[in-house]
């Protein structure tokens, strides 16, 4: 018994120290922080180790659209255009582009760009890459609108869409639109084992279940990165990522747990970077359900949720109020507060009574079995209980969750959506085009919204498009088929001598530009 008590005291003491920001605790980590890789002799470190929460499934960008994969492949491949950290379109492999007509865009490629295998990038590679993407079921959903890709000359390529598409350029910034080396991809049956792109880092090795090692590409068109070796290390547990950062095992750790922010910030050897992401978390209602089909019921639920408390409980306060719209603040057409739902339990009860449920009802809430879902589901369960709705939480693995919710087995569900353009966000959430698996899991269909979406996509007048998006937001905020709750913060912790790192709201941060030391 004594032993337990003693060890508890030790643990308590140690925790207390850690909590204080580590006056004593960090002293021990000092040597590690100065030189995690033990390259004590060399003046500047040029090896960067990045801790990521999920292992990539591929290093070929054209197989599957998952964040784990894209966070790595974005370093290996460049796209025609890119978004900078402030979400402005910047030329990358395309030096410039002309909009020929509503459906045709001409890209003028940067000359003399080398692939990692030494070949020069040409219009043929661009055409091949985009067609390869369109042919791949796992990544093509954003590009099916492309009808033709024409090579004009070696350095000019023309993309034709079947309908006007104002957000084409944004979509071409996504990793699924990565430009791969045609020669390399055609010569090997397993491009995934030896990917060749023209990005700032080239593929070196991938131990299955272990580290992925990349090396600086010395002939990178924008100049070689000062980071010569880039290692991605999968550490699924957020607390372990923080510890790895503290012990100096890694230089950068993605997606720290909100509860660790204070500790990391208080540590003089470490620093944090945070930004608002394009990821919006929401609770959705299956409108095909007889009870949830009633607008008043959905509104009543909205009134029952105290978003501030929800953000405190679920995100430890590190998220922004989603302001009743699925659009995140930096997206074009963001129009908050068109319709608002104050936290008002009495009003919620009244609306329920109006809908015919004065004593509430029971329903299911489908969530995945990851921490954030668990915290959120418990908070939602409690919130809805206040107006008399009994929530049964159904927690399941990701695959089951996605499948069940796309079939509409659920009543309520909690989920997130990340997007960098208004069309893909609104279309995925509220359009008939995307019922079920493609994103519309509330099965909410209003023909008017679909029309407006198409119109906004086709128009070249961005003010008109903004206006249309605003109207759509007004309708969906009134109907609340889903209630947006929070816009997640993206965060990264790093050693304080890591400089130049920029967070990218689309979650796939570019390492290029990062350097260690001054």
């Amino acid at each position, binding site marked *: 018994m004594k032993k337990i008590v003693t060890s508890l005291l030790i643990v308590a003491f140690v925790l207390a120290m850690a909590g204080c920001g580590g006056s004593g605790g960090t002293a021990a980590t000092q040597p590690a922080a100065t030189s995690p890789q033990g390259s004590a002799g060399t003046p500047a470190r040029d090896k960067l180790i990045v801790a990521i929460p999920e292992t990539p499934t591929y290093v070929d960008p054209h197989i599957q659209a998952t964040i784990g994969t894209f966070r790595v492949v974005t370093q290996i491949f460049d796209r025609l255009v890119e978004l900078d950290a402030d979400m402005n379109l910047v030329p990358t492999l395309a030096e410039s582009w002309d909009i020929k007509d509503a459906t045709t865009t001409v890209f003028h490629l940067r000359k003399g760009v080398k692939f990692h295998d030494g070949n020069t990038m040409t219009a043929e590679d661009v055409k091949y890459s985009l067609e390869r993407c369109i042919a791949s079921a796992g990544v093509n959903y954003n590009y099916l609108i492309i009808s033709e890709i024409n090579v004009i000359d070696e350095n000019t390529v023309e993309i034709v869409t079947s309908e006007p598409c104002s957000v084409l350029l944004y979509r071409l910034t996504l990793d699924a639109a990565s430009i791969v080396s045609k020669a390399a991809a055609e010569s090997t049956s397993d491009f995934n084992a030896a990917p060749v792109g023209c990005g700032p880092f080239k593929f070196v090795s991938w131990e299955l279940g272990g580290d992925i090692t990349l090396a600086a590409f010395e002939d990178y068109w924008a100049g070689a990165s000062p980071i010569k070796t880039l290692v991605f290390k999968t550490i699924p547990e957020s607390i372990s990522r923080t510890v790895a950062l503290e012990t100096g095992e890694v230089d950068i750790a993605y997606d720290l747990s909100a509860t660790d922010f204070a500790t990391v910030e208080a540590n003089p050897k470490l620093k944090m970077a945070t930004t608002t992401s394009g990821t919006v978390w929401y609770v959705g209602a299956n409108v095909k359900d007889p009870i949830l089909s009633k607008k008043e019921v959905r509104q009543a639920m909205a009134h029952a949720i105290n978003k501030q408390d929800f953000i405190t409980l679920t995100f430890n306060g590190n998220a922004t109020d989603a302001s009743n719209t699925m659009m995140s603040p930096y997206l074009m057409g963001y129009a908050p507060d068109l319709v608002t739902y104050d936290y008002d339990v009495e009003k919620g009860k009244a609306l329920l009574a109006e809908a015919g449920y004065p004593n509430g009802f029971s329903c299911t809430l489908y969530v995945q079995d990851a921490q954030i879902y668990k915290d959120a589901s418990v908070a939602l*369960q409690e919130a809805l209980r206040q107006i008399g709705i009994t929530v049964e939480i159904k927690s399941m693995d990701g695959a089951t969750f996605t499948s069940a919710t796309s079939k509409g087995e659920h009543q309520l569900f909690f989920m997130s959506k990340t997007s960098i353009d208004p069309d893909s966000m609104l279309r995925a959430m509220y359009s008939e085009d995307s019922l079920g698996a493609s994103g519309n899991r509330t099965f909410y269909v209003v023909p008017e919204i679909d029309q407006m979406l198409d119109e906004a996509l086709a128009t070249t007048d961005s003010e008109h498009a903004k206006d249309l998006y605003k109207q759509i937001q007004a309708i969906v905020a009134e109907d609340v088929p889903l209630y947006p709750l929070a816009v997640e913060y993206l965060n990264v912790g790093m050693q304080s001598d890591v400089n130049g790192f920029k967070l990218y709201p689309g979650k796939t941060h570019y390492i290029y530009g990062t350097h260690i030391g001054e």
Partner: protein
Amino acid sequence: MNFMTTITTTTIVKRRKKKSQFVMVWERLKQNRLAVAGLVILSVIVLAAIFANLLFDYEAMAVRQNASIRLNPPSSEHWLGTDEVGRDILARIVFGARISLPVAFATILIAAVIGGLLGAIAGYGSRTADNIIMRIMDMFLAIPSTLLAIAIVATLGSSIRNLLIAIAVSNIPPFARIIRSSVITIRNEEFIEAAQAIGANDRRIIFKHILPNAMAPMIVQATMCIAGSVLSIASLSFLGLGIQPPTPEWGSMLSNGRQYIRVAWWVCTFPGIAIMLTILSLNLLGDGLRDALDPKLKN
């Protein structure tokens, strides 16, 4: 030594013949200080679970969330602190015992009954039955039990009932094995031959002779397995396959509290200690029971 054993056993038998088996076991158990300690700890936990409603307001302390008092350290008001949504940890641990213990007992009861029957049939029945049953058990044994439970919960979905089934199924093979081997040992003993000789039928032999004699290893195995079961429930919850919120359950408390361990050590530490104490007490009791039920095994 031989001399010693003969003397002591004969005298003990002589003097205590009048007392029932139960009283004898109890008396031996009482002399084992560790087992008594285990029994006391377990009783405290069980009593707390039974009278949980008198101790705490379930609604107010174990379920209702309160963002203003989240992650409060232990204090006079909340003895073991509050969790990430402002619930009292002590109250949740006490109510958690209401889940962990009954579920663990139930799984073992199911496993013991099914495993016991299978083992008895295998041990007492025909060679074919024995072969079929034991080969199937071998197959189940070749799959690690945690993984079997994970697969079953993943298949059936996570709920108390499915958790129960999953853990029970993965516990069947050891019971079947134990009973089978006891049955085979006992079956070959003379008193069974004697019973057969006087024309007792199989059922009577199984229920009147074999099962009571196989009870001792069964009870010991059951006590140990309850401990294992408490751990399995916690493990599955840790992997996100456990009992669903807001039901307080130790494993999920541990797993939820885990990400706060550095800022709020109490959230994760106390449920861990609750699990440890429960398992410890069950193990102590199991050891004591084994010694008490079968003095020959002692030392």
